[in-house]
Every structure is written in structure tokens, then in C-alpha cells.
């Protein structure tokens, strides 16, 4: 339970960190050379991250313990990968892929409207 609570907290934290990064000026700079498709993808992913953050945060931990347990490994890897991508911000595509990947796991835990 403690491990799962920790994982849950870490998931919410990385989702919050993602939004903080994507609303910051460094992200704007990183997106300078982005393609139109990347801008659209980034916009939709940012909104999905916010939705996931609000949905997870509005859900009682006790209600999703089983699903968290089922997805424990994937979620932990997704968090590490996304945190790494956010820390370096070297490639926009890598950040977007990491966000996409973690959202697909979060969607198995709480219902997200795609």
C-alpha cells in the first residue's frame, strides 16, 4: 500500500511537473523549430496531461489500488522516462513520446476521455 501510494504521488507529481515545464519559457524556446504537427500534438498532450492530473487527483487512492498494482512497473518506467525527458528538454519529440506513453498507462488506471 505504501509503495502504491508513493507511486500514485510520483505519478501526480510528474504530471504536474510536465505542465509546469510546458507552460514555461524554456518549453517555448524548445518549440521554436517545431513542426505544425508537433504544435498540435503538444497542445493536445498538454490538455490530456491536465485532464489526467485532475482525474487522478479527484479519485480516491483506495478505489484504484488494484489497477495501480497491475500497472506498477510500466508506470514507474514511464515516470522515470518522462522525468528524464523533462530534465534535459533536448528533444521535443522525446518529451511528447514520453508524455504519450505515460498517458496510455494512466488511462488504464482511471478513465480518460481521449
Amino acid at each position, binding site marked *: 500500500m505504501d509503495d502504491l501510494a508513493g507511486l500514485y504521488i510520483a505519478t501526480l507529481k510528474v504530471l504536474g511537473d510536465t505542465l*509546469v515545464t510546458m507552460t514555461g519559457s524554456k518549453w517555448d524556446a524548445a518549440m521554436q523549430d517545431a513542426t505544425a504537427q508537433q504544435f498540435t500534438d503538444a*497542445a*493536445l498532450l498538454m*490538455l490530456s496531461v*491536465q*485532464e489526467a492530473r485532475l482525474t487522478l*487527483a479527484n479519485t*480516491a487512492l483506495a478505489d484504484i489500488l488494484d489497477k495501480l498494482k497491475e500497472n506498477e512497473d510500466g508506470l514507474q518506467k514511464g515516470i522515470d522516462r518522462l522525468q528524464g525527458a523533462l530534465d534535459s528538454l533536448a528533444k521535443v519529440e522525446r518529451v511528447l513520446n514520453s508524455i504519450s506513453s505515460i498517458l496510455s498507462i494512466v488511462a488504464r488506471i482511471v478513465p480518460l476521455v481521449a
Partner: protein
Amino acid sequence: MRTVPPLVRMVTILLLLSLAGCVSARLAQFSGFSQAGVAYVKASGTFIDEAGSAAIRSDSAVLLQARPNLSKEQRSDQLDKHNARLKDRLLILRKIKRHGKLLQDYFEVLGSMADSKAPESLGAAAQGVYDSIAKLTPTLKNATIGSSPVSAVIPSAVPIVVASLKAKTLEKELRDRGPLIERELALQEALFTVLAQEIKTDLSIELNRREAEEVINPFISGSEVPNGWATTREDVLNTTVASESAEAAAQAANELRLSFQKLAANQFDNNALSSLIADINSILDLTEKIKGPPPGE
């Protein structure tokens, strides 16, 4: 220089007077604590309102940033989804506020009991208020706000030892429900601990956008810097720093809980009251500093 809000100033003076040189100093302490408890609930209520506003503002910042890259259909769809999630969030905040309001009612009953002639019927009133509080408690304990489940941060119980009192109704109340109220105050502390984390993230998102769009972009662009740029910059930086003190409400809740313990044990004095009032003031101070710009700006 910051000014102390008139309500707090008045409460502070009344409380200190009520504790000084009173015939029944011990009972006056309960009166003082009761008024401080009411002031705490009012101050924490403004913080909860601000937490709700910050959540909406940060969500709006995200929506507005994404909007230029979305089709009309996507905009409509996203707005609906985000509105629904925010309503859920605001509902939880409303329950926290309701919990505080019921504690305020309890503190008022406790204040009325601080009289050696207080009728026994006040005990039934206190029981009624407590029953209402207890109905809300499980939902709030199980809630997750921001990045933590509330239950994970509820502090351990402190023992409530009741020293003998002339007001027997009050003494009985403290013996019957003192430990239960201590747990409700611990729940308040936990709620504000997680709300603090949440409000920090929401403010970071909102302030990031403001900083990029209203401070950085206008400054580095080739155009003239807009009027009010320096003021906006000052506001963004000051609010960013203020948001780091978001734990003020949790600190005040902690102080209130420990004061309740001291009060029951006859260890509550002017110093404890002053410290409690300072913490209540810091909630109001923080809320004032992190308030968003007035609507329409």
C-alpha cells in the same frame, strides 16, 4: 508594508483583553480559544476559495496556451472535459470548507460552555454538530487533493488530558469529545498540507504563462515594452515567492490543534494565543499575496 486586516486586528485585541486579568481566567481561555477557532475557519475559508480560483486559473492558462493549435471541435470538446473535472475539484473544496464551517459551529458552542452556569443542553448541541462533522470525515479522509492522498498525511494523535473545570458542562464535553475533535483538527491539518502542494503547482502553471507572455516575450521582442510591464514583472515574481509559503494554513491548523490540547490541560496562555493568532494572520497574508489579478485584467 502589509496591513493587518481589521477583522483580525479586532479579534486579536478582544482575545488578549479577554485573557488578561479576568476573574475566571481559565474559562476566559476557552472563550479566547473559541474566538480564535472561528477566526481560523474564516481565514482558512479564504485560502480554500483561493485554491479553487488558482485551480481554475491554471486550467485556463493550459487551455489558452493549447487553443491556437486546436480545431473548433477540439476546443469545444476540451472545454467540456476540463469544466467537468474542475467541477469535481471544486466540490471537494466545498466539502473541506463545510468541514471547517462545522468546526466553527463547534468552537462557538464550546465558547458558550465557558460559563459555570452553562446549561447541560449545550452538550446536546455539541453532539449534534460533531455528528455532522463525523458524516463528512470519511469522504475527506479518502480524498486525494493534489499530489497526496489526505489519509497519508494525517498527523498522529496527541493525547487530550482534561484538567478540572468549574464549568461542568464544558469539562464533560472535553472528556467526551476532546479526542475526537483533536482528530478533526488533525484532518484539517492534513487537508491543508495537500492543498498547499496543489496550490503551488497551480500557481506555477499560471505564473509560468504570465511570465512568458507578459514579462519575457514583450521584453525580448523588438516592439516597445508595454505600459505596466515593470509592475507585472514585480507582481509575477512576488507571487512566485509567496506561493512558497503555501503551508501557512496547515501550520495554523497544527497550531490550533496543539492549542486545543494545551487548553484542555490548562496550559494555554497569552503566548500560545499570540502564536495562534500570528499563524491565522499568516493565512490571510498568504491569500492576499497569491490572489490572481482582478477579473477582466
